[in-house]
C-alpha cells in the first residue's frame, strides 16, 4: 500500500498491537503461571520455580492422555495422507464427479464439529462399533482429510505436465513415472499436509468428546479436568505445547511455501 499519513499509521499500529496482546494474553497466563505462582490475578514474581515441570513428569493421567493423543495423531496422519493423496491423484485433471466428491470431502470441515461428531456417533451406534480409539481416529481422519486432499491437489495442479510427458517419452512405465516423478514432486506437500493434519488432530476436542470411549485424548482430558480447575502442572504442559506448536508452524510453513516464493516475497 502507498504511504499513509502518520496519525493513521499510528492508529493502525495501535490496533494491531492491541490485537496481538489480546491473542497472546490467554497464552501468556499459563506460561507465566508455569514459572511463578498466580493467585487471584496477581503474579508473585519473587519465587520463580520449575516445580510445575517436575510435577508434570509425575502426572500419569496427563502423560497417558498425551500418549493417546500422539497415537491418534500418528494414525490420523497416516490414514489421511494416504487416502488424501490417492483421492487427489485420482481426481486430478478429472472433470466428471470431482466437484461432488470434493464437496463430500469438505463437508465435515465446513459443518460445525458438533454436527459431524454427532453424525458419526449415531453412525457408529447403528453399525455397532463400540466407541474407542478407532472411532476417534476415524473421526479425526474424516475431519482432516479435506486439508490433506487440498494441499496435495494444489501441488499436483501446479506441477508441470511436461515432466510426466517427458517421463513417458523416455520410456518409463506408469509405475516408474509415479515413483520417480510424481511422488517426489508431491512429497513436500504431503509432509506439509501431514504436519497440518497432526496439528489439527492434536487439538481436536469437539468431535473427540462425542466419539471417544474410555480413553481420552489430551484436550478431552483437560476439558474434563477444568470443571474442577487446573493443577499447576498443567501450566507447564501448556508452555511445552506452545513451544511444540510454534515449531510445527515453522515446519509447516517451510514445507508448504515453495522455496522460490519465500525468497521472492522477502
Amino acid at each position, binding site marked *: 500500500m502507498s504511504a499513509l499519513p502518520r496519525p493513521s499509521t499510528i492508529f493502525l499500529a495501535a490496533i494491531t498491537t492491541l490485537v496481538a496482546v489480546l491473542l497472546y494474553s490467554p497464552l501468556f497466563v499459563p506460561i507465566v503461571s508455569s514459572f511463578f505462582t498466580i493467585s487471584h490475578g496477581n503474579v508473585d514474581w519473587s519465587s520463580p520455580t520449575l516445580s510445575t515441570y517436575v510435577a508434570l513428569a509425575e502426572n500419569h493421567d496427563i502423560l497417558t492422555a498425551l500418549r493417546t493423543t500422539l497415537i491418534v495423531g500418528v494414525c490420523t496422519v497416516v490414514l489421511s495422507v494416504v487416502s488424501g493423496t490417492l483421492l487427489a491423484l485420482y481426481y486430478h485433471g478429472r472433470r466428471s464427479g470431482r466437484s461432488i466428491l470434493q464437496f463430500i470431502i469438505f463437508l465435515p470441515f465446513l459443518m*460445525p464439529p458438533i454436527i459431524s461428531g454427532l453424525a458419526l456417533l449415531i453412525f457408529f451406534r447403528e453399525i455397532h462399533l463400540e466407541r474407542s480409539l478407532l472411532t476417534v481416529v476415524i473421526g479425526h481422519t474424516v475431519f482432516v482429510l479435506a486439508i490433506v486432499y487440498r494441499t496435495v491437489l494444489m501441488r499436483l495442479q501446479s506441477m508441470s505436465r511436461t515432466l510426466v510427458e517427458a517421463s513417458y517419452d523416455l520410456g518409463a512405465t506408469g509405475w516408474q513415472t509415479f515413483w520417480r516423478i510424481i511422488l517426489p514432486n508431491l512429497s513436500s506437500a504431503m509432509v506439509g499436509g501431514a504436519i497440518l493434519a497432526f496439528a489439527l488432530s492434536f487439538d481436536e476436542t469437539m468431535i473427540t468428546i462425542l466419539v471417544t470411549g474410555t480413553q481420552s485424548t489430551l484436550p478431552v482430558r483437560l476439558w474434563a479436568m477444568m470443571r474442577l480447575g487446573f493443577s499447576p502442572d498443567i501450566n507447564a504442559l501448556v508452555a511445552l505445547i506452545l513451544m511444540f506448536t510454534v515449531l510445527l508452524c515453522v515446519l509447516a510453513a517451510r514445507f508448504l511455501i515453495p522455496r522460490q516464493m519465500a525468497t521472492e516475497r522477502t
Partner: protein
Amino acid sequence: MSAAGSTHPAERRLSLLVTVLAFALPVIFVLVPLAIFLVYSFFSVDQGTIIYAPTLGNYVRFFTDPIFLPVFWNTIVLCVSVAVICILLAYPAAYFLTTLKGRWRYALLMLLLVPLLMSYVIKIYAIRSILGLNGFLNKALVAVGILDQPSTLFVFNMNAILLTLSLLLIPFAILPIFLSLERIPQTLLRASDDLGASGWQTFLRITLPLSLPGVASAASFVFVLAIGDFLTPQMVGGISGFTFGRILYSQFGTAYNWPFGAALSVALAIVVICAILIGERFGRNRGTSL
C-alpha cells in the same frame, strides 16, 4: 495416474474398482452418517429407547416450545456480534500488515496466526481466568480507575461467551481480509493518488470496496465457527449463558434424546449452510477473493 483411453477389459475393471474405492471412503464415512443423522431427526424417544417410526414431532416441538426458538435466535445474534467484533479488530490489523514491507509483513501475519494452533481448551480456560471476578481484566479496570470494584459483567454470562469467542476467532478474520487487501493491484491505488484523491478518498472508494469480499468470507468463517462451538459456552457461560450448541449437546448427554438433538442439529446446519452460501456469494466478487 490413470491409464487414459485404454479399453483393455482388465484395465477397465481395474479403473472401475479404483473409482469405487475413491468414492467409498468419503461416502461411507461422511455421507452415510449425515444421512442417518437426518433420518434420526424424524424418530422419537420413549423412556430411553429410540422409536424407529417417522414423525415430525421433533420439528413441531422445536417450533412450538417456548424455549428453543428464543435460544436459537439469541445464539444467532450472539454469533453475528462475534463476527462484527472480530472484523472491527481484524480489519485495521490486516490493513496495517499490508502497509509493511517484505519479510515483516509475513512475520507479523504468522505471529497473529500462531495462536490459532494453540490448544483451544487451554485458551478458553485461560480467558476464563482473565475475565473472572478476580481476574486480570477486573484487576486492570480497577487499577486504571474505570471501575470501583471488580464487576460481574463478564463472569459466567453471555458477555463472557461473546468476549471469549471473539478472542478465539480473530485470527480466522485476519487471514481472509489480509489476502483480499493484498490482492488489490497497487496500480489502482497509484492511479487514485495521481488523480488527486486524498488518502481517505482512496481508502473509501478503492480499498474498502475491493476488500469487501474478504470481509464477507471472514464474517462467514467466524460466524460458522462461533455457532458450532459448544465448549466455550459450556465453559464460560455459566447458568445464564445458554446457547443453542449447549442445548444440542445436552440432548446427547443428560437429556438422552438423540432424535430431538438430531432435529436441532438440522436447524443448526441450515443456518450454517445459509451463512456459507452468503459468504461465498459476496466473497467471490471481482476476482479478488480467496
